[in-house]
């Protein structure tokens, strides 16, 4: 096993999959970086450092640096994948999904269904998402609720270096379209990564910590926050059953319900605002299917119903934190029926 930063895991996994399968192509804005500029190709190698060196290795027919044209990027990935390629499209910030929503929602997600099951659409749309960079309202959002709500898309949110490899390799080999969400604040995080072929099937959550008192659900950067909170809570004798969901579609309902049936309490941590959101969706699932197990109201630590603000103080107030998670868990533990 090697220690790697998540941004390097992403590049290396794409590299391995491109070497393994000639039909894999990659396209996006500045993924080569420097094309047509005095600095020349590979001057950047991707804004996020997730594609450096791939152009030099695979050439312009497979590593396709595009103009700033999100609709055409997704459309081109879609057309290529309908005709025999496996396309990895990068949307530089998940916020830009607004620009190419038709191609994702009405085209890519619906091809297989509309065409009577007679087509494959092996496309991975990689989208860096989330807050923590003081990048303000149009460069900090999470979008997983929106895409999870769209039938036909699979949605992945890795939280560790090892999971990033296993889930990305799986995403590239899927015959369905996959939205692969990379938290911007995790790119520099290091972790051990298995060598060689490593795949994680979708729909299988990861047990992060085990505990009998409260079930905690998280994805992406929120997993680390919740792990930190769980360590604090353990010192006070509160055991967290922390589950990293890994994929929001398909969702590992069994892992969630089994845990809640055991602990009787549920805390959901999510970066999105709380209305019509991923947290409310999970709440409804548990309220509907494990109601009799609940010993306290479901707690949610989410962003408020606002855009993600710019100033450090405001963004900190917006984002969930280990402290907010601890407080919510303590509240759930102290609940007594009146």
């Amino acid at each position, binding site marked *: 096993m090697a220690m790697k930063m998540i941004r390097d895991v992403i590049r290396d996994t794409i590299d391995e999959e491109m070497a393994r399968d000639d039909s894999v*192509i990659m*396209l996006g804005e500045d993924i080569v970086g420097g094309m047509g500029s005095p600095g020349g190709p590979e001057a950047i190698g991707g804004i996020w450092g997730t594609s450096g060196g791939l152009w030099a290795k695979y050439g312009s*027919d497979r590593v*396709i640096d*595009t*103009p700033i*044209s999100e*609709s*055409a990027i*997704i*459309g*081109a*990935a*879609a*057309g*290529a*994948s*309908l*005709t*025999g*390629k496996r*396309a990895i499209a990068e949307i530089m910030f998940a916020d830009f999904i607004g620009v190419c929503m*038709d*191609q994702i929602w*009405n*085209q890519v997600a*619906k*091809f*297989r*269904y*509309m*065409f*009577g*099951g*007679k*087509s*494959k659409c092996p496309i991975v749309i990689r989208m860096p998402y989330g807050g923590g960079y003081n990048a303000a309202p149009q460069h900090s959002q999470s979008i997983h609720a929106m895409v999870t709500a769209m*039938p*036909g898309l*699979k949605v992945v949110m890795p939280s560790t270096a090892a999971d990033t490899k296993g889930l990305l390799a799986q995403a590239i080999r*899927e*015959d*369905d379209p996959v939205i692969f969400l990379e938290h911007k604040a995790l790119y520099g995080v290091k972790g051990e990564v298995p060598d060689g072929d490593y795949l994680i099937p979708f729909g299988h959550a990861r047990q992060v910590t085990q505990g009998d008192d409260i079930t905690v659900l998280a994805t992406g950067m929120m997993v680390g926050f919740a792990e930190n909170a769980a360590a604090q809570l353990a010192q006070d004798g509160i055991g967290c059953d922390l589950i990293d969901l890994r994929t929001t579609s*398909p969702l590992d309902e069994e892992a969630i319900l089994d845990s809640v049936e055991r602990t009787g309490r549920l805390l959901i941590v999510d970066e999105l605002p709380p209305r019509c959101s991923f947290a409310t969706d999970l709440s409804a699932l548990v309220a509907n299917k494990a109601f009799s197990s609940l010993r306290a109201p479901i707690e949610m630590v989410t962003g408020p119903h606002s855009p993600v603000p710019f100033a450090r103080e405001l963004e900190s107030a917006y984002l969930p934190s280990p402290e907010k998670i601890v407080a919510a868990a303590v509240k759930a533990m102290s609940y007594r029926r009146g």
Partner: protein
Amino acid sequence: MQLSREALLQAYRQMKTIRVFEDRLHDEIALGEIAGFTHLYAGQEACAVGVCERLDAQDFIISTHRGHGHCIAKGCDVVGMMKEIYGSSEGLCKGKSGSMHIADVTKGMLGANGIVGAGAPIAVGAGITAKGTGNVSIAFSGDGACNQGTTFEAMNMAVVLKLPVIFVFENNHYSEHTGESYAVGAESMTTRAAAFGMKAIKADGIDFFSVYEAMRELIAYCKAGNGPASIELDCERFFGHFEGDPQRYRGKGELDRLREERDCLKLFRTKVTEAKLLEGAALDALDAEVTALIDRAVAESKAAARPTADHVLEDVYISY
């Protein structure tokens, strides 16, 4: 005209199949036999057939909101299409697509589209696959779609990536109910396409031979690695934007005049018979053959199996 007799018969057969298919749909819809929204292609047959008769099975096309003609021209199963429009589970897309989204990827037909302008970027992707293989990708768009930003992005990207994509603009002069003279701000679609840096030409969209000859030139241009090209086809739409459209935006007597003076099938018949390339009897025989095919398609569609509720979840994912 250097087409063989067989090629001429095939072109006529395809155009006539589209016309009879559309005329019959018009009648069936009026009788209340078909649900949903249907956008008929009749009048534009020379465009679809003039383009697609130049293509082979490995070439790709992406269609528009008005897609039946392109499907038929690219070789999709006509009976399967009719069953699809009737909503049968035996339809080409198992009753999931209806009129607006018919596709058969195995035939290189990547779909009609319910979203005006969505096709051009997808054709660019098929162009990525086609590049270097000797194949081409065709993006059919109307004069409505030519004003969508997606079409602009697609044209620019195809130029940047030097892809073998041909943007075919079928200018039937109406985007829904709005005239081209109002909605297309540029002098023409051709000057606009040329501004993106591609070869851009015009052809007479009601004359099969004009379209067919122009496509020879453009396909050769693309296959030589010059990047994309575009063609604007001046054509006519005989029915409304959708079936049931009262067409109050039309001029007085406009439709009668178009059907009399600008019918691509009449023009084809006149040209080939006057040049003594085909005789009327051969064309009449094809008319009868096509009419029998469409009669059978309608009869089989009415008798075909209906989808059941357990089909709703089928084909959302490949495996879930």
